[in-house]
């Protein structure tokens, strides 16, 4: 409590709701998090982080003990995606910290707001290869937006506050504070100040007006304009602005995979998403476009395919909060640096008239008819995964949050589900980390509203990597439903082996999988199983109705492949629709 806020009286320390004054570095860390409005922390205890945990004992914030630190960071990441506020994860030094690495790298690639707090050996031991010592700031430097080694109990709270603010402001991303045990144990009575970013960090709010005007002119003159909405649209809360602009000017909208939910996929102007397994019509539209208004995307190679063939006729109007993204992978004709919501507003004001898009929209509609997402059903054959995704979508509300692992199931979950709301699609994009799905569902559950459902589509391989987190879901009685699309393969690898390695299925056959429904029961969750089309509807209904964590072991057609497909580095317009196109 700052001195301006209240005149301290003798009783003030005991009054209801008034926290005890800070007495240690650890208490200061906890206070900084409380000041920042943190509600949940995901982590695992351990020697070097114990002082911080001890300080949490007296806090109102809820600590969720996870089974593995990777679970903690993925849960924090998903919490960040769904809530918009940084998710917090904690780990001890050494192995605790290294177990966070995958999740930190994942958050870094997807610009997700995450704050990681790691214990460290006492300062005097640093550099001596002490028990459980790892150079955590060194290891995580290339995969954090910013990281800190806290060296002083008096300032540690401010450092944590700064790390929190840095995770959220500008281009979001993971930050880390390494907390040596002597620093957290040390006495201090310094209350941390409010969370703020350093003075040298000044992301632009609005874009340069002259560039906006020039870009708006180029846009108004376009014949085949497309809006490409990336994850940054959702992060910047710019979805509504993009919707309004697209509808006002009748411009077709393509999203990137992280941008799914930025624009309602049931809208006529939606072409769903583009890239390696994006829709044929989205890839056609981007390829043939003469003007792309790209907002909050980093032109990842999974989106562009080979840059030589990416939208070669298109002028690119690139809106991004991070100047380093402009012309990084694909040259931007107009670089509009600033907050996506503000810049889309500026741009909307600057556009005079609308491009005439009638013919172009008709062309896009024709591509939708020509390249529909579809699949073959044979009632006597194994269940098609696409059918299951559609059935779960039909059985749940529009605001349902979907998380996934990584593989074919992830692609089906974004192809065959119709997303209409931002912050309902939670996946590992840039890093493609198997094992993301279950812990992400846990983190998403804490961030979502109570009446929002949380479902996870996982693969048998991905599920096996982090399924121990089901214990957490069971302990906390979290209402999540995991659909394991079980093909007894690490299917995406099997598909590539079939396509590019002459079907030599080295190490991709997973015919040694456990019974996932039984496994779920052992963890304290409810287990279900689907073998035939007849089981689908009732089992989905029962699993969704179960209040608590449930796992549906869905035995799907093991030979099903994901199409369309743009081979790595290929030409988006030449997407394959069948194996013989590869």
């Amino acid at each position, binding site marked *: 409590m700052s001195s301006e806020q209240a005149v301290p009286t003798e009783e003030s320390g005991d009054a209801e709701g008034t926290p005890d004054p800070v007495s240690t570095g650890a208490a200061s860390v906890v206070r900084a998090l409380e000041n920042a409005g943190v509600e949940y922390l995901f982590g695992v205890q351990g020697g070097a982080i114990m002082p911080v945990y001890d300080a949490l004992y007296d806090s109102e914030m809820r600590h969720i003990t996870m089974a593995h630190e990777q679970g903690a960071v993925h849960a924090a990441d998903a919490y960040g995606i769904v809530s918009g506020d940084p998710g917090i994860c904690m780990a001890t030094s050494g192995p605790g910290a290294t177990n966070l690495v995958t999740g930190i790298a994942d958050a870094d690639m997807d610009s997700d707001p995450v704050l990681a707090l790691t214990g460290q050996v006492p300062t005097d031991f640093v550099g001596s290869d002490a028990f459980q010592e790892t150079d955590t*700031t*060194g290891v995580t*430097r*290339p995969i954090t937006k*910013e990281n800190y*080694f806290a060296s002083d109990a008096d300032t540690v709270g401010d450092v944590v506050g700064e790390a929190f603010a*840095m995770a959220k402001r500008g281009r979001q991303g993971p930050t880390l504070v390494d907390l040596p045990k002597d620093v957290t144990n040390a006495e201090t009575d310094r209350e941390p100040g409010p969370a703020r970013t*350093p*003075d*040298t*960090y*000044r992301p632009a709010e609005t874009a340069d007006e002259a560039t906006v005007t020039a870009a708006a002119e180029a846009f108004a003159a376009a014949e085949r304009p497309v809006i490409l909405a990336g994850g940054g649209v959702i992060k910047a809360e710019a979805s509504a602005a993009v919707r309004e602009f697209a509808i006002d000017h009748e411009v077709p909208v393509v999203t990137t995979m992280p941008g799914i939910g930025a624009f309602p996929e049931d809208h006529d102007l939606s072409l769903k998403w583009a890239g390696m397994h994006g829709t*044929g019509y989205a890839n*056609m539209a981007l*390829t*043939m476009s003469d003007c792309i208004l790209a907002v909050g995307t980093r*032109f990842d190679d999974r989106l*562009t395919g080979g*840059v*030589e*063939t*990416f*939208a*070669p*006729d298109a002028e690119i109007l690139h809106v991004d909060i*991070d*100047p*380093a993204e*402009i*012309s*990084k*992978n*694909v*040259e931007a*004709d107009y670089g509009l640096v600033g907050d996506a919501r503000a810049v889309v507003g500026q741009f909307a004001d600057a556009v005079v008239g609308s491009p005439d898009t009638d013919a172009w929209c008709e062309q896009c509609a024709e591509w939708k008819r*020509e*390249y*529909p*997402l*579809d*699949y*073959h*059903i*044979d009632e006597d054959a194994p269940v098609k995964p696409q059918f299951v995704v*559609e059935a779960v979508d039909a059985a749940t509300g529009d605001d349902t949050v979907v998380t996934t692992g990584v593989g074919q199931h992830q692609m089906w979950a974004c192809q065959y589900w119709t997303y209409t709301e931002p912050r309902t699609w939670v996946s590992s994009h840039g890093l493609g980390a198997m094992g993301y799905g279950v812990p992400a569902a846990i983190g998403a559950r804490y961030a979502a509203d109570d009446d929002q459902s949380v479902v996870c589509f996982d693969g048998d391989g991905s599920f096996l990597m982090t399924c121990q987190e089901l214990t957490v879901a069971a302990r906390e009685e979290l209402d999540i439903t995991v659909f394991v699309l079980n093909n007894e393969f690490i299917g995406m690898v099997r598909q590539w082996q079939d396509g590019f390695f002459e079907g030599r299925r080295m190490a991709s056959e997973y015919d040694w999988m456990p019974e996932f429904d039984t496994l779920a029961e052992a963890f304290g969750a409810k287990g279900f199983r689907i073998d035939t089309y007849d089981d689908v509807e009732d089992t989905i209904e029962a699993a969704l109705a179960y209040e608590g964590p449930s796992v549906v072991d869905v035995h799907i057609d093991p*030979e*099903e*492949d994901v*199409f*369309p497909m743009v081979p790595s580095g290929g030409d988006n*317009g*030449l*997407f*394959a*629709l*069948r*194996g013989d*196109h590869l």
Partner: protein
Amino acid sequence: MSSQDDPPENGLLGADPDDRPRPRGRRNSQGIRIDPEVEAERSPRRTTITALVQNEPGVLSKVSGLFSRRQYNIESLTVGTTQETEWSRITVVVEEPDPNIDQIEKQLDKLVPVIHTRELDENAVARELVLVKLDAEDPAKVHAITEMYDGRTLDAGPRTVTVELTGSERKIDDALDALRQFGVREIARTGQTALARGETKTSTVPDDLKP
């Protein structure tokens, strides 16, 4: 759901890749829209980038990590303190095509301790220091050539002479070429450091960041 035209058992319906409309244009491998006839890539050029940074642990490792993970070709990188004890100046000489030079500047600027980054023009004042240890068979001749390049002899023994040279990269290269005849035993170069010429500011600092 299945349509009337049932899709194949594994895959989708739709036109073959060869039957689809094709765009006319092309980009180069740097993602730049180009004339398909020419298809030129931007070729590398040598340039100097300067960055004013706050002195804090890890700055240099952040900067060098930035270069190494992107496989940029660094010719030299120097660091030293400035008029303010809180600040250091980093000077980087790189040989890269334009898109990469642009990226280097932006990535540097992105680092939180970096206050200001820019590329210096050719007119900048740039100097490098080199120490050369040579065989001392003909000390007089070594001395003469060293003097010719305004260098100094720092150490002369019965078998070796060590000289110091400062100057532009070009001058140092020339001096080293001239000295090679004496048998070079070892060379240590500092890499280039530089400031903008005359009244031009090398780095601009927002008022509130001034110490």
